[in-house]
């Protein structure tokens, strides 16, 4: 056996170095993936509903073996739009939801503007009425669909669309169809449109599937903490939590009486507070940065982060914008300060106060980095 000479050792070292780099990168990425408890907390999904989504995704292969790509995030995206994760309802340990979640009566009467008529199929068993059909449960199944798609997700021997586990598994089965590959965007689109045939619905569900997926895989970093000037900006804004929204209100020194008026005539003259750009103007003034007056103008300062880069590209302290046309900065109408965990602090609208909330899914127009 030949001894490895110096040249051979050098070559071996050069070959092994990238291998170690790849292994290190993989390990580092895994460490960035948050635990599900954190994901649930930052995403605002109630823990019991998140458990139902995860359980359904885990059971799905036994129901539709050919289906690929069914994840808790897909189910969460659908449930977000169908029922906001059963918001305002109680969920027992076994997954039962009370009071029952019932959609409008679909008897062609025009409830909510819809004139589609669905004949009654369940005699009121699931939807409480025999005069027509209502969508039921956290995933808003039509009773007729539930008859063929319903599953027993919690193993209690019943298939109940008002049970979180049963409904989640039934939704997973329905979305998978005859064995869709949901990692293929076009097939995911088809699945969602089959669920509810509306482009608005499709866009809304996809935006939340993407948001939840990115929180789950670490693309949107969680448990990030601002430091330095970013921390100063954020802390300044946090000290204004609860201060009323005031049209035209806020300057570099703090909340002020606003001006008259918003386009519809809402006046800020009697309200000491902030409007959206006044809050950001104040917060950044604490680190010596003087922002322009309006949200659209503030988007012209600093390094622009395009909407296409996603929420995951934002860092705590960045300005975050919202527009009627995300491709046109001139249509920007709102600004907040990004906190991390897909959250922002902002003065949202007349009648509200400075508060923290999820970065809006509607009209996201990227951010700006000034720090």
């Amino acid at each position, binding site marked *: 056996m030949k001894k490895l000479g110096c040249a051979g050792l050098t070559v071996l070292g050069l070959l092994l170095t990238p291998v170690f780099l*790849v292994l290190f990168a993989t390990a580092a990425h895994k460490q960035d993936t948050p635990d599900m408890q954190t994901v649930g907390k930052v995403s605002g999904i109630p823990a019991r509903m998140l458990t139902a989504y995860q359980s359904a995704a885990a059971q799905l292969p036994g129901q539709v073996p050919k289906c690929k790509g069914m994840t808790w995030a897909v189910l969460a995206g659908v449930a977000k739009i*169908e029922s906001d994760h059963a918001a305002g309802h109680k969920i027992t340990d076994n997954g039962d939801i009370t009071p029952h979640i019932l959609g409008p009566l679909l008897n062609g009467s025009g409830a909510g*503007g819809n004139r*589609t008529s669905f004949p009654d199929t369940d005699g009121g068993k699931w939807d409480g009425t025999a005069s027509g059909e209502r969508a039921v449960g956290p995933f*808003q199944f039509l009773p007729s669909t539930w008859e063929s798609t319903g599953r027993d997700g919690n193993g209690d021997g019943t298939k109940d669309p008002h049970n979180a586990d049963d409904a989640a598994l039934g939704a997973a089965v329905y979305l998978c169809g005859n064995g869709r590959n949901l990692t293929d965007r076009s097939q995911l689109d088809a699945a969602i449109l089959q669920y509810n045939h*509306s482009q608005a619905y499709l866009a809304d569900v996809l935006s939340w599937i993407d948001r939840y997926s*990115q929180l789950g895989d670490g693309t949107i970093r969680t448990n990030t903490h601002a430091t330095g000037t970013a921390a100063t900006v954020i802390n300044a804004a946090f000290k204004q939590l609860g201060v009323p929204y005031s049209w*035209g209100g806020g300057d570099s020194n703090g909340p002020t009486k606003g001006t008259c008026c918003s386009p519809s005539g809402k006046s800020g003259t009697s309200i000491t507070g902030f409007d959206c750009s006044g809050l950001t103007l104040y917060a950044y003034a604490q680190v010596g940065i003087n922002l322009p007056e309006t949200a659209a103008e503030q988007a012209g300062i600093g390094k622009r982060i395009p*909407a296409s880069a996603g929420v995951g590209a934002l860092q705590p302290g960045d300005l975050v914008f919202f527009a009627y046309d995300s491709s046109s900065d*001139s249509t920007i109408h709102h600004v907040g300060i990004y906190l991390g965990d897909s959250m922002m602090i902002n003065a949202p609208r007349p009648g509200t106060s400075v508060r923290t909330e999820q970065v809006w899914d509607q009209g996201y127009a990227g951010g700006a980095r000034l720090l």
Partner: protein
Amino acid sequence: MNNNTHIPRLTSIAWPLLLGTVLTVLGLTLLRPTHARVGQDVAAPSSSAALPTAARTAPPLSPTSRMAMPPPKASASLPPRSRAAAPSAGVVPVTGDGPGGDYAIQQVLESSSPANLPRAEENQLVALGSRIWLAEVTGTGRDRWPTYFGNEPLHTPYRDVRIQAGIARTVGGSPDRARVRLVWAGEDPAGEAEDGRSAQVLLTRSHAAWQPIR
């Protein structure tokens, strides 16, 4: 023990070195932060029970409303100041301002791109796009466009929808293709009410009739 040391020829170590370099670059690339695309399509659509009699319910707009918005001002070098008087009403829309504030959104949309259709034709296209979008999100009226909507029912419609503003622009310079860009408000199936939602409807003209296309 073999004492014969063999100095590799340059060509025999070149390939391993090249491979090592490529793998090193790959490893360093993987260590860089990545930013996934959100994949959020702004294309939004939704609808309301009450079809607007005209997409533009705003007060008459001045000819200057079609001028492009001035570029944002950079003011980082200005000294700290109190805020000037708020921008004049009708220029800066705000979320949650209600129907009375929709005209400000109309102005912002109109200023976002140069108009390239006669005003009357643009109004007609916006009205058509609005009806199609209402059908898209409430299900009402879909039978007018069976090819576009198919037979799939809408079992969880959006509710209390109104079109807040709309513009129409030709696409690709063709006089027979237009994109209607709408801003709308409505309540999703879960009951979450939001305004300032974006939507687009693509139209094509054939035999003098405009039809929606996907």
